[in-house]
């Protein structure tokens, strides 16, 4: 069987403002056979997206692509502009990452799908529209006829992704490049969409290059996996082999960092005195003209003991972030009370914020870009006038040490730090006034898996030092690792709660069951080789690989 896509010695470099160009891809070889699904996995900066963009011929000014990319023997590197139409949109198509941004916000979706047919002269007018609606239906958009004339913002995330899939299949492609096709979606939606894409591709014998940071997704969906690091291939082979028995240290670290669906928690339940109690919380977002009200949180009770760890899981719109904001005093509940015990305080009190601190999802936008991070870290501390300059310096040193950052980092500004460093800075800021409780809203979802593992280890260590945290996340595997108890939210209500391992291993509520079943990674889940429950061992493996 000859290969459909053949990439030979591909190099991609980006001109940088100062100094030498940045080498994003350094000599990658890669093949995709007809009908084969190949996953490109790696962390940010590994070059996986650059390879995808090179295959799609999407390079911006200042990008140099050398080497060879052939599709059915036809060279795509340096393809002249006027020849592009013969390849892209029909033979090679894309399912892009961010379903909202990837659609033109001003055109009805059906027009964006039928555009493929019109551009390539495959159909026009009403015929193009009919074919586009067929493609939308094929992509799993129920009620395609009705939704066809909607604008992208009127559809849900899952529906938008189906529009993009329709766009990718409508021209009858040989190869689909799927670049993180579902990372912006909820896990149950992700599963349905990947199932659907899988089925479509297998049925039509189309090849797929699946670009993902999510090893579990790669394991479930790909025939072959190519692991990338620093722009080069680290390891490649059948999905099962690479992801269960990686041979190179780098791939091993990557695999070890992924919290598996059946890993052992890093934290144990505690039976402390009550720390935070919430009863009957309710919050309604009033609907705007014509749209009904949204009940975000609907009668929620919550209890967290001193030094305890509680996960709040659910999909978008389940009310988990609203809950976190109510607990932080950032959102006023329409009903219900939040009490911080001994000495009692309520959200909004000064005594409350001294003991309860937030860690948000995006550390970059939650830090003032104009301030050196040291200033940001000490801001809560200074706001309470806790001491003089010398005391401030001492405190800064302590918290940086606590989050395992070098002292020199305090003088840098946010844009000079990596995502993992920034999230440590955000945690250091929260810790600066020695709170009893951290409320973390998706604190690791924007981070790479190895960085995520380090932050999770850090939180588990802080817990061992007596800190309590409430951890809001859509990622069940992450919550399983670092939360002893969990609360599953669905449409503003708690549908199930209990010890994390019990809830995830033997879910009682149908929604929890659906959520647990949708977690990717079943294909390589191996209870025997799972992460040891000591944090340092894993961090060492990760560090050793660097």
């Amino acid at each position: 069987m000859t290969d459909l896509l053949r990439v030979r010695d591909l190099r991609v470099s980006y001109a940088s403002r100062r100094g030498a160009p940045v080498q994003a891809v350094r000599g990658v070889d890669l093949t995709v056979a007809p009908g084969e699904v190949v996953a490109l996995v790696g962390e940010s900066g590994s070059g996986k997206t650059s390879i995808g963009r090179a295959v799609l011929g999407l390079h911006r000014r200042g990008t140099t692509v050398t080497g060879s990319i052939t599709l059915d023997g036809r060279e795509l590197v340096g393809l002249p502009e006027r020849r592009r139409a013969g390849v892209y949109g029909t033979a090679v198509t894309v399912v892009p990452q961010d379903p909202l941004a990837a659609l033109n916000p001003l055109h009805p979706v059906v027009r964006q799908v039928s555009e493929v047919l019109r551009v390539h002269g495959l159909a026009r007018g009403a015929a193009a529209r009919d074919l586009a609606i067929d493609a939308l239906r094929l992509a799993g958009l129920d009620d395609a006829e009705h939704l066809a004339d909607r604008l992208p913002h009127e559809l849900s995330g899952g529906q938008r992704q189906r529009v993009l899939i329709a766009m990718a299949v409508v021209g009858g492609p040989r190869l689909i490049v799927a670049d993180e096709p579902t990372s912006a979606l909820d896990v149950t939606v992700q599963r349905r969409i990947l199932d659907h894409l899988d089925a479509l591709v297998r049925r039509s014998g189309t090849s797929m290059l699946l670009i993902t940071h999510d090893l579990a997704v790669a394991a479930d969906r790909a025939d072959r996996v190519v692991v990338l690091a620093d722009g080069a291939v680290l390891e490649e082979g059948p999905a099962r082999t690479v992801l269960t028995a990686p041979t190179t240290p780098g791939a091993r670290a990557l695999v070890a960092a992924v919290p598996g669906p059946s890993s052992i928690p890093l934290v144990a339940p505690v039976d402390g005195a009550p720390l935070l109690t919430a009863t009957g919380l309710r919050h309604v977002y009033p609907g705007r003209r014509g749209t009904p009200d949204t009940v975000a949180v609907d009668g929620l009770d919550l209890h967290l003991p001193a030094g305890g760890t509680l996960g709040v899981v659910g999909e978008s719109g389940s009310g988990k972030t609203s809950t976190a904001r109510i607990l932080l005093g950032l959102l006023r509940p329409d009903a219900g009370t939040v009490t911080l015990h001994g000495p009692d305080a309520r959200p909004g009190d000064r005594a409350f914020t001294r003991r309860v601190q937030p860690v948000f999802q995006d550390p970059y936008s939650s830090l003032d870009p104009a301030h050196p991070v040291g200033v940001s870290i000490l801001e809560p501390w200074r706001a309470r006038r806790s001491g003089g300059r010398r005391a401030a310096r001492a405190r800064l040193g302590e918290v940086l040490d606590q989050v395992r950052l070098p002292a020199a980092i305090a003088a840098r500004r946010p844009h000079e730090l990596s995502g993992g460093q920034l999230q440590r800075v955000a945690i250091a800021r929260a810790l600066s006034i020695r709170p009893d409780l951290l409320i973390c809203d998706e604190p690791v979802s924007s981070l790479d898996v190895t960085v995520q593992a380090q932050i999770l280890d850090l939180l588990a260590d802080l817990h061992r030092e007596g800190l309590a945290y409430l951890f809001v996340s859509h990622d069940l595997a992450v919550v399983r690792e670092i939360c002893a108890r969990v609360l599953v939210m669905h449409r503003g209500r708690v549908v199930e709660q209990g010890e994390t391992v019990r809830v995830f291993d033997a879910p009682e509520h149908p929604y929890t069951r659906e959520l647990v079943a949708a977690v990717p990674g079943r294909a390589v889940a191996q209870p025997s080789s799972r992460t040891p429950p000591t944090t340092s061992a894993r961090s060492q493996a990760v560090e050793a690989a660097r």
Partner: protein
Amino acid sequence: MTAFLLRRVAQMVVVLWGAITLSFALVHLVPGDPVRIMLGGGSGETAASASPEQEAALRSQLGLDQPLLLQYLGFLRRVLTGDLGQSYSTGQPVTASIGAGLGSTVQLGGTAILAAVLLGLLFALAGVLLPGRAVRSVVQSVTVLGVAVPSFWLAVVLIQVFSFTLGWFPAFGSNGVQSLVLPALTLALVTAGTIAQLLTRGLTDALGEPYADTARSKGLGRSRIVLGHALRNASIPVLTMVGMMVGGILSGAVIVETVYGRPGIGRLFVEGVRAHDFPLIQALIILTGGLFVVVTLLVDLAYRWVDPRIRTGVPA
């Protein structure tokens, strides 16, 4: 849509009422006695030389001898019935003076806006579509010049080149289309530069958006991406700009009509201010307010046409 229009018309009425009230207040806010100012400035004599009878006559003609509230209500009533009083300097009803100048200014402003939009569009598209990065850079730089040059200087240069040297267009007057070219161009070039800049920026940004990548992955060529996807997205901020231009055109008309010796609203403004002709200035303020209100409504309607998200509800 009907609800939207009704709401907007209600807003227009409020804004217009504000403009009317402001123009009424103008007479009372000016330091000194408006009657004395008008008598002094209008005839070129000093106020002292006007007889007390003259003063009293003007005062009662303007209604300034009545209580303030009555004056205000009377003013409102007269404005609503279309009676804006008589110009003090010419003795004609101000509506007649304005009516005479309005046509010429509307012609000038309309041509200028049209020219600015077309030129802006042309340069912006050339700036992203022409082959060769060097060529595109040159086109984009030229637009900076358009923004930087002051309109009175530009007017003088245009007259010098196209009228005195080449003799293509008349330098002064308002006879026919020929005489419209230079003044309209003078008014248009500055705005055209701004539009081109804004649009170029918008187009470049749009081309960097993921949906432009999607379009490229569909096999679309650059011009189809620009015209079919980027242009409409990039025109949204330009619309706001065009709305604000109307104000610029009116103040620009003051200069341009003076330099080119054209009759019009701009000239009237200058003359009115020079002659301390309060009724005329008041009428011009109300007219300007009315123009703004109408243009704002048109721009808002255009928004709904360009950006269907506004029609269909809350943006995501």
